[in-house]
């Protein structure tokens, strides 16, 4: 029997994961003892505190870590990439707390909801640090399972259940593919650690590796909701409670894309010419599919879901470039995108609560003038999603295009430009609905709920991030650069 050596555990590095996880336990336990009336407030407070604390911990780690290293027997990495992604996830979580505080469904499931939200964020924080195929798989399952439940948490609503079941089936299928791919990669290289895979590639069986790479790519693409692996996205986004949708759109995308970048760049630098081209094709498919399908949507949530598919395309574009500029572009883009996603869904949630019905372009009429701040913010988000200033996605797109152009794939940037032009139509449709259409009679079935200061604060924070990321771009880009500095990008 081998000598047993207990691994040293870097508690500090794990702190974002542990804080949120601990918070989840506290909420879960407390909800057993606390009277129902205070559960919601307590849970939300704990969640908010934990998100702030975890985010702060991640910031502190980011500041402290000049270089990255594997910890706990190299199972996960402690590096700036992971820490930046954790900050984003925690930020999205914090905003989601504000958005979901008054969500009607929260009354019954108060404790569990906050616990699951915290756990999901925790899982993502773990996932983005994953450093081998096993932690990758486990992290993925960890937060996926949380999201399955969160999607279906309003168990009396069939759409939510349907969405949850679909998510689970497709998600498990994707996991199985990822697993099988991992097995093949493991077999080809004899290793599960990313760096070891990269090191073992040379001698390994290339064909196994390539087949495994294809499967891993599909598994990750599924999570990032890139076409053609995206088809669950609209249904799940539409069926899930709106704040959860916002969280998924923001945090899941951050986690999936950061990990995609990490896996492809650290584990498969040798197969660069395969996955970059494959990603380019996936980018085109996502842009086309997402934008075209969004064009004919009536439900705003569903439209935003398709929009998130198209943004998956834009976000994968810099990864496809495979260069350092691309890494920067991805992380910078994610900063603005995640804030704006939460914000956009938050505004949808407000209207949804007013109407007690799904929000469509038709029943948005007049909303912009009734609630000028939220309407204005939504307009900003929509213009921002198009890629217009003054929202940060504008610069994100510039960087993404710059990355592919630097790689010599100007055509890909042009494809992006064309589909951006198409996307104008539906984004602008929301603004048109809010501000330019006469208000239909008697739409407000849900009455006029009291102003939700927390939600408004969340939206305001989203706006600040969205605009601020453009105005003070330089520090953020430095941060993004630092985050990807250590990655061995295959393209010069």
């Amino acid at each position: 029997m081998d000598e047993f050596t207990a691994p040293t555990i870097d508690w500090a590095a794990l702190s974002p994961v542990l804080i949120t996880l601990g918070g989840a336990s506290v909420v879960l336990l407390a909800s057993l003892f606390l009277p129902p009336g205070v559960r919601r407030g307590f849970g939300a407070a704990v969640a908010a505190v934990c998100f702030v604390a975890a985010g702060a911990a991640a910031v502190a780690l980011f500041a402290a870590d000049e270089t990255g290293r594997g910890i706990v027997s190299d199972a996960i990495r402690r590096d700036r990439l992971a820490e930046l992604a954790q900050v984003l996830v925690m930020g999205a979580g914090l905003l989601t707390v504000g958005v979901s505080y008054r969500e009607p469904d929260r009354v019954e499931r108060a404790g569990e909801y906050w616990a699951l939200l915290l756990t999901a964020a925790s899982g993502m924080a773990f996932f983005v640090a994953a450093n081998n195929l096993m932690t990758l798989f486990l992290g993925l399952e960890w937060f996926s399972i949380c999201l399955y439940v969160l999607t279906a948490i309003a168990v009396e609503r069939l759409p939510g259940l349907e969405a949850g079941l679909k998510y689970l089936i497709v998600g498990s299928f994707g996991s199985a593919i990822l697993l099988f791919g991992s097995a093949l990669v493991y077999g080809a290289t004899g290793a599960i650690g990313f760096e070891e895979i990269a090191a073992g590639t040379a001698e390994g069986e290339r064909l196994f590796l390539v087949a495994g790479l294809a499967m891993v790519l599909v598994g990750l693409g599924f999570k990032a909701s890139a076409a053609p692996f995206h088809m669950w996205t609209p249904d799940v986004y539409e069926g899930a409670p709106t704040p959860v949708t916002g969280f998924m759109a923001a945090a899941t995308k951050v986690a999936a894309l950061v990990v995609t970048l990490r896996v492809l760049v650290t584990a498969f630098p040798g197969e660069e010419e395969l996955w970059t081209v494959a990603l380019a094709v996936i980018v085109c498919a996502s842009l086309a599919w997402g934008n075209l399908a969004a064009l004919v949507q009536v439900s705003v949530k569903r439209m935003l879901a398709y929009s998130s598919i198209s943004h998956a395309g834009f976000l994968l574009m810099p990864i496809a470039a495979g260069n350092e500029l691309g890494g920067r572009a991805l992380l910078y883009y994610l900063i603005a995108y995640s804030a704006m996603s939460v914000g956009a869904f938050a505004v949808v949630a407000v209207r949804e609560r007013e109407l007690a019905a799904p929000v469509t372009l038709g029943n948005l009429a007049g909303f912009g003038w009734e609630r000028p701040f939220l309407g204005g913010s939504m307009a900003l988000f929509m213009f921002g999603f198009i890629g217009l200033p003054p929202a940060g996605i504008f610069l994100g797109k510039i960087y993404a295009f710059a990355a592919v152009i630097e790689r010599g794939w100007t055509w890909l940037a042009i494809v992006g430009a064309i589909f951006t032009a198409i996307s104008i139509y539906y984004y602008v449709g929301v603004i048109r609905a809010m501000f330019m259409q006469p208000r239909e009679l008697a739409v407000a079935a849900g009455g006029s709920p009291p102003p939700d200061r927390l939600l408004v604060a969340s939206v305001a924070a989203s706006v600040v991030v969205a605009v601020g990321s453009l105005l003070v771009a330089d520090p953020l880009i430095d941060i993004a650069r630092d985050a990807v500095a250590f990655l061995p990008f295959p393209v010069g």
Partner: protein
Amino acid sequence: METTVLILLPVAGAVVLWFAPWLTPRAAGGFALLVALAELAFWIGTALNFDFGSPGPQAGADRVWFADLDVAYRVGLHDYSLWLVGLTAVATAAAVGYGFWVGRERAGVYLSLLLFLEGATVGVFAAQDLVLFYVFWEAMLIPLYVLIGVWGGPGRLGATVKFVVYTMAGSLLMLVAIIAAGLQAGTFDMTSAAGRGSSTWIFLGFAAAFAVKAPLFPFHGWLPDAYRESPPEVAAVLSGVISKTAAYGFLAIAIPFYPGPAEDWRVPALVLASIGLVYGSLLAFRAPDVRGVVAYSSLAQMNLILIGLFAANTSGYTGALLQMVNHGLISAALFLLAGAIERRASTGQLVLLGGMARGRPVLATVLITTGVIALAVPGSSAFAAEFLVLNGAFAVGWGWAVVGAIAIVLAAMYMLRLVSAVLHENVGSAVPAEALDLRPAEVGVIAPLVVALLALSFWPAAITDRLSGALF
């Protein structure tokens, strides 16, 4: 520094208005007008201190925005952009004044958007960094979209979609071109190497955006609807100022930075612009409504300006720049007049109009004066500009100038038709007898534009002499 103030002053005014919804429409309007006039005054101050002899950008600022791609907040005014900024200030002040007087619903938001638009437009003229240029370029779009979409006419929704999709399709290609150009040069600084080269594709990327926005024939599909459905003062700014940003793009970026491709594409561009000139004139001649005539005449005039630019010689450039200022003032005045006419007759259909000159001498005088300057009667500043433009075109090939000369005749035809259809002959069925002459406020808004045109007619060299020739 001054340039920054010119950009930020209206933006700051817009922000104040945006976050002060408790202001009464009157207070908001007064404030907006004050800001617009302050901008104008500041521009005059800047122009007085301007050193017209020196070639580089002046009164600028340079602050790093993000260093890794060498993108910075670089602004500054060339002598040619100074004039366009002035045009912006004048036209916007008139538009704000008109909007204030007309009393738009939600005046605060409305005027703040107009002011924001002004800041963005000045930014376009002042940007010395390609990315910054693009930011301002797109920033113009948002207020315009809302202004037309919310306060426009009955067909506004379709018009806005067309407008936005068209212009964005062009400008996104420009974005790709800008990035490619910046990466090639390693910097986006327009005053240094950025964007200079011989790449046809990059040139075409720029040209796509400018051709749509100008618009060059046949990329004007958005134009008639947008001009017809906008509130008149927005149409005034749109056709008077915003279209000039596109001409400016050709003038300051596409042609001088890419001389080789511009040379290669000169003939196709001239062909399109010539067709557009005649085509716009002919359609203006047959347009059924006041705005239609002005809109298509705008198309024709912009194509004329492009002819001057593509001629790519001193005469053409000088004339084009002068005509940009002229046409800005002219079409602003004409659209405001169209608004005044529509307010009185509640329609712009020419068959329902007529005979408005009787008892309305001020309206008649102002409309006729603007109209004859618009048709470039010899002696007007528009004539001076067209003369230079066509002279420049003549130097490239006599055929272009002949087409331009034909268009001069057509311009006389459509402008006189407009003037007559509104003012002359029998009183139109839609013209109520009690419709007033131009009110003092309207005169106060429109007359400065016309006076500026008359002053320029006396002394067009005020502008043409103050071009250092840095471009040529």
